[in-house]
C-alpha cells in the first residue's frame, strides 16, 4: 500500500480527528507533500461541513391529517376483521395459530368423549350393506369359494359409523379371512348387545337379515 492509499484509507478519521498521534502525524505530513491528496482532503472537509447545513424539509400541515385518517382506517379495519384487536400485527399470527390448534384439539377431545359415551350421531348412520356374493347362511368358511383376502371390510358392512378409526387402520393392510371374521363378529355382538347405541344400525342389521358369512 503506497502512502496515498494509506492516506485515503484513513481520510475520514483524519478529518474527524479520530486518529492516534503517530497516524495523525503521518497524515499531516502526507497532506503537505501530496497535492492530489491535499485537494481531496480539502473537498471532503468542505463536504462534511456543507452536508449538515443542507436545507431541512418540513412536513406539510396535511401530513398530520393524512396520518390520522390512515390511523383511523387502520383501527376500523382491525376492529372489523380481527379476533384479537388488542394485539399488534406481530402477535396476530401466533394468536390465530393458537386458536386453530385449540379448535382442532377441542374437536379431537369431543370426538373421543362421544366415542367413550357410545354416542353415534343419527346423521352419521350409513345403511348396513351385505354383499350379495357372500354366503349368507353358512357358519363356516367355504373352503371351495373363500372370499378374497383383499376384499375390504367396508364391502361386507358399512361400518364407518361403528368404529371408523379401527376400520381405517385395519383396512390399510390386507386382512386375512380369519381377521375379517373376528372383526365382523365383534361388531355384530357390539351392536346387538347395545354397546353402540345406534338403534338404526341394529334395525338395519335386522332388516338386512345379516348373517355373518362364517
Amino acid at each position, binding site marked *: 500500500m503506497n502512502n496515498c492509499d494509506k492516506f485515503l484509507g484513513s481520510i475520514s478519521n483524519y478529518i474527524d480527528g479520530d486518529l492516534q498521534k503517530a497516524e495523525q502525524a503521518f497524515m499531516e505530513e502526507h497532506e503537505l507533500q501530496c497535492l492530489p491528496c491535499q485537494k481531496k482532503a480539502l473537498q471532503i472537509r468542505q*463536504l462534511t461541513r456543507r452536508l*449538515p447545513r443542507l436545507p431541512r424539509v418540513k*412536513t406539510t400541515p396535511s401530513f398530520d391529517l393524512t396520518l390520522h385518517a390512515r390511523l383511523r382506517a387502520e383501527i376500523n379495519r382491525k376492529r372489523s376483521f380481527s379476533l384479537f384487536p388488542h394485539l399488534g400485527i406481530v402477535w396476530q399470527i401466533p394468536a390465530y395459530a393458537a386458536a386453530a390448534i385449540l379448535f382442532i384439539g377441542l374437536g379431537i377431545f369431543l370426538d373421543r368423549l362421544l366415542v367413550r359415551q357410545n354416542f353415534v350421531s343419527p346423521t352419521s348412520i350409513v345403511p348396513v350393506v351385505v354383499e350379495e356374493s357372500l354366503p349368507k347362511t353358512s357358519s363356516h368358511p367355504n373352503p371351495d369359494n373363500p372370499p378374497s383376502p383383499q376384499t375390504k371390510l367396508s364391502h361386507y358392512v358399512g361400518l364407518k359409523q361403528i368404529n371408523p378409526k379401527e376400520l381405517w387402520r385395519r383396512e390399510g393392510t390386507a386382512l386375512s379371512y380369519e381377521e375379517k371374521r373376528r372383526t365382523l363378529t365383534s361388531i355384530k355382538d357390539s351392536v346387538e348387545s347395545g354397546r353402540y347405541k345406534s338403534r338404526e344400525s341394529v334395525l338395519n342389521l335386522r332388516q338386512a337379515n345379516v348373517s355373518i358369512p362364517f
Partner: protein
Amino acid sequence: MGRRLSIDQSIDDEELIKQFQEGNLYAYDMIVQRYKDQLLNFAFRFLGSIEEAQDVVQETFLRLYQNKHAYRRIAKFSTWIYTIAGNLAKTELRKRKRRKLVSISDLSFDEREYEIKDVQANIERDVDGSLKEEIIQRAIDELPPRFRQIIILRDIQELSYEEVGAIMKIPLGTVKSRVNRARLKLQAKLEDIMDRGGN
C-alpha cells in the same frame, strides 16, 4: 380511542414508547411530533422526492402504531424507528427502479435521448444558490443505497457512529470504513457532476 394523559415534554423517547405501549395515545402523538421532520429529512435525502418521502414517513408511523409491542427497551428508540424508515425507503427505491425500468423500456430510442438531454438542461438552467444543494442531492442520488444511507445518517443527520451501526446493523469498524468510502465516492461524484457542467 384510549387514555390521553398529559406528558412532560422533557420525557425521553423510551419512556414515551413505554407509555404508548400501555395505551396512552398522547405519547404516540408526541413521538410523531418529535420524529416526523427528522425522518422526513432522512427519507427526502434518501429518495430525492418530497412526496415519496412523506409517504415513507407516514408508513413508518403507521408501522409504529401497528407494531408498538415489537419494540424492546434493549435498543434506543431512535435507532429502531430509523431502521423502520430506512427499510421502507429502500423498498420504495426498489419499487421506483422497477417502475423506471418499465417506463424507459417503453420509450423509443429517440424519446430516451430526449429525456437525458432534458435532465442535463435542468442542471445548467438553475445557476443560483440552490444549485449547489441540487448538485449535492444529485451526487447523493447517484451513490449506491448503502453508501447513500450512511452519508445521510452520519453527515446530514449527524448521528453518532454507534447509532449508525445500530440502525444499519453493522459493527463500528465497518461503519467507519464505509463512511470513509462513502465520502470519497461522494466527492468523486461531485467532481464528475461539476465536470459534466453542473456548476
